[in-house]
């Protein structure tokens, strides 16, 4: 770390304990991703296997087994990196451990068949840096994710951590910090994209001695998990951003409102806050400068609407999380009626980088009014799912096809859904749309919090719209009529359509309701709830019409409108489907084509999933 000459910089240098750095670049290490997805894919067993076998072979002193935060390539978990070479082993199983130890650790080679296969060329890729998923990203917020131990503050400090705080404290000019944020062009990453510097200025300028700072980590959009990964992988970068913001606006107390569904994030953040207090980075006299600030954690209790800032404040205050009318905005009257600044996790995580590298370097990335980078969680029917960070201005095609590796074999791209229940979808001919708040808004989609779900020809767009509306309807707090009743009526129409009971005029009724709900809802939950329906109507109206007029589901997924059958020509009579069928709807002799009885079939899809010959098919005939 580099040290300045001010009080804070000196105090920071004293707080650093180099001997406690867990992960050092250039050392022999087995790095195992300890993100939620890798954990679920078997990370704990793989870690234990490495530890045991290294001990057995007497290599435990030479090779260290360390756990890092999320690498982002969740699709390929659990991910193991052999350092210092950076050899990348995806989807590692316990049985692979012995081979990796023997070939890579002892003999210095690579286990060819365990390496990542390039989705386009089919060649094996040995090093993490060459994996196309990483190669094409611009990792700024995620720069240390997967490279440090989230439980070690010293890992973070060794790589420049908290230097930005020391810098602003030594310079002692809160207005200059706000100017810097404004110049950088950073906008709120939670969805609405409000300029961060401007928000800070409002709170700083609001009358009152007591001001609060809130970090919104109530990441509720289904399909978005970047905030969780940042908190799990590098909690300090968020704390540092909050410290700088607190100094800029003059807050002494901060809250992180985090979903209780994210236990690892809560654990790691709690630990990080404790170490910060021990090292004098939180408390009454931060880095010896007299600046006082501390952070509490509030766990959300499971309510999507609490992502809305006034609802979130109500929840911290111990009430039902219902939004209220704005103005007054939280900047003037927020938590306990005091001026309050609320940003989300990713926004705070950008701050330290901007302070250290300057507003110009940040504004260099991006286009128009959208600057810097944005993290997306790329999921759905795409080859390389996971967490990606790209500069603003990248095209959707680049994200889905270059980084995401395109569609699963044999499947066709249909749409990409952005911004979850508040957002919309982009069809094939809008793939050149760039990631820019304004450009995306014009299409009906939004940048949103960064959930990016790719769907293929097997996803029914009417059902997808129904899915999102069901979500918002269930999560509606019930305070205002347009959202409470309007979304309910809209959902009823959509449910009838997917059940094959759509009527002439339904589309027009939906559109009328949608417009009213958008115009008259109290908060953004209701105000944006019709978006998924409106964009699917805009780009996939034919699918709605097929459901309503022909009682047909073109994607073949709406259960009421499909039947299963076995293609006699393709069936080899392997009997697997008939063995797996829970209702014995499939019969047939060995090595003879099987027959599926549609009256017994419960459409559970098991037969189609187990069939290795593609002989089980779905049929959705026009019945009208």
């Amino acid at each position: 770390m580099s040290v300045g000459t001010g009080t804070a910089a000196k105090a920071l240098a004293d707080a650093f304990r180099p001997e406690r750095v867990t992960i050092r670049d250039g050392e022999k290490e087995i790095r195992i991703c300890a993100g939620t997805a890798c954990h679920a894919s078997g990370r704990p067993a793989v870690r234990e296997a490495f530890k045991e076998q290294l001990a057995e072979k007497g290599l435990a002193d030479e090779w260290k087994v360390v756990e890092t935060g999320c690498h982002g390539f969740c699709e390929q978990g659990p991910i193991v990196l052999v350092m210092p070479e950076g050899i990348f082993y995806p989807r590692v199983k316990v049985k692979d451990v012995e081979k990796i130890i023997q070939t890579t650790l002892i003999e210095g080679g690579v286990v060819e068949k365990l390496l990542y296969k390039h989705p386009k060329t089919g060649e094996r890729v040995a090093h993490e840096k060459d994996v196309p998923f990483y190669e094409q990203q611009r990792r700024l917020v995620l720069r240390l994710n997967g490279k440090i131990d989230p439980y070690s503050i010293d890992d973070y400090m060794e790589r420049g951590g908290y230097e930005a705080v020391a810098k602003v404290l030594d310079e002692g000019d809160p207005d200059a910090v706000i100017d810097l944020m404004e110049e950088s062009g950073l906008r709120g990453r939670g969805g609405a994209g409000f300029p961060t510097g401007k928000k800070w200025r409002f709170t700083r300028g609001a009358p009152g001695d007591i001001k609060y700072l809130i970090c919104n980590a109530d990441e509720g959009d289904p399909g978005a998990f970047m905030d969780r990964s940042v908190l799990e992988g590098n909690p300090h970068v968020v704390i540092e951003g909050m410290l700088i913001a607190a100094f800029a606006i003059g807050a002494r107390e901060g809250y992180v409102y985090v979903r209780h569904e994210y236990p690892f994030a809560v654990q790691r953040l709690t630990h990080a806050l404790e170490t910060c207090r021990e090292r004098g980075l939180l408390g009454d006299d931060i880095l010896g400068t007299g600046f006082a600030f501390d952070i509490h954690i509030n766990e959300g209790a499971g309510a999507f609407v609490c992502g809305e800032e006034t609802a979130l404040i109500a929840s911290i205050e111990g009430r039902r999380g219902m939004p209220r009318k704005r103005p007054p905005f939280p900047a003037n009257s927020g938590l306990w009626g005091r001026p309050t600044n609320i940003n989300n996790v990713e926004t705070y995580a950008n701050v330290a980088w901007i302070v250290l590298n300057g507003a110009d370097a940040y504004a260099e990335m991006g286009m128009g009014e959208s600057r810097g980078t944005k993290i997306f969680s790329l999921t759905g029917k795409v080859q390389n799912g996971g967490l990606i960070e790209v500069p603003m201005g990248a095209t959707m095609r680049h994200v889905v096809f270059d980084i995401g590796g395109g569609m699963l074999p044999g499947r066709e791209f249909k749409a990409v859904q952005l911004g979850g229940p508040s957002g919309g979808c982009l069809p094939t001919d809008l793939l050149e749309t760039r990631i820019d708040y304004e450009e995306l808004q014009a299409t009906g989609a939004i940048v949103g919090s960064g959930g990016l779900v790719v769907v293929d020809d097997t996803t029914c767009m009417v059902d997808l719209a129904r899915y999102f509306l069901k979500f918002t309807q269930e999560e509606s707090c019930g305070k205002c009529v347009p959202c409470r009743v309007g979304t309910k009526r809209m959902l009823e129409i959509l449910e009838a359509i997917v059940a094959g009971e759509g009527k002439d005029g339904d589309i027009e009724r939906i559109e009328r309701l949608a417009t009213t709900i958008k115009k008259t809802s109290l908060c953004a939950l209701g105000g944006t709830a019709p978006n998924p329906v409106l964009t699917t109507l805009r780009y996939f109206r034919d699918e709605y019409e097929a459901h309503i007029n022909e009682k047909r589901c073109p994607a073949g997924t709406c259960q009421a409108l499909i039947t299963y059958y076995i293609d006699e020509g393709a069936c080899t009579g392997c009997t697997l489907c008939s063995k797996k069928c829970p209702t014995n709807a499939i019969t047939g002799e060995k090595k003879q084509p099987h027959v599926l009885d549609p009256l017994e079939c419960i459409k559970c899809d098991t037969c189609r999933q187990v069939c290795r010959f593609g002989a089980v098919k779905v049929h959705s005939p026009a019945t009208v």
Partner: protein
Amino acid sequence: MSRRISKLVEEPAPQACPVPEIDLSLVAKTVAEHDPSSQLITIMQKLQGAYGYLPETVVDELSRQSGVAASRIYGIITFYAQFTTEPSGRYKISVCQGTACHVAGAPLIIDAFEDAIGVKCGCTSEDGLFSLEGVNCVGACALAPVVRVGEDETHGRMTPDAARDLVAELRTREVEA
């Protein structure tokens, strides 16, 4: 007053709803460690964590200890998905209903669990063994569709077939335990 009580004891016939036997001392302890005026939800989360659910007796005791009206506590319980007034089954099966899981077939997984357990999603089986619920995105989208058993056990890339096998496996686990 005492006469009436003794009479009730003598005549056990008309029974009120059974009141679960719960050690309520934890309520006072938790309230003492937090400020109920600003940390009510945190207190409730601790109690829900300890008891597994928030039955009437706990709510009443919390109201007494904290001075917060029971109606307000119920208001919070019914608003937030985390809180429940009913005990959950031994194995709480949570099927993720995030977008990635939905497009990967989560509705079929729920159907399969409903079929295998014999209860609708959102209910607990009569033998108290299974609770089945749909949950909002757990953020493990790359493993869609995702199912959680309890808090720690996660199953990714589920299929209806695997769901039925999982129920069978949990039943065996229960017999062996």
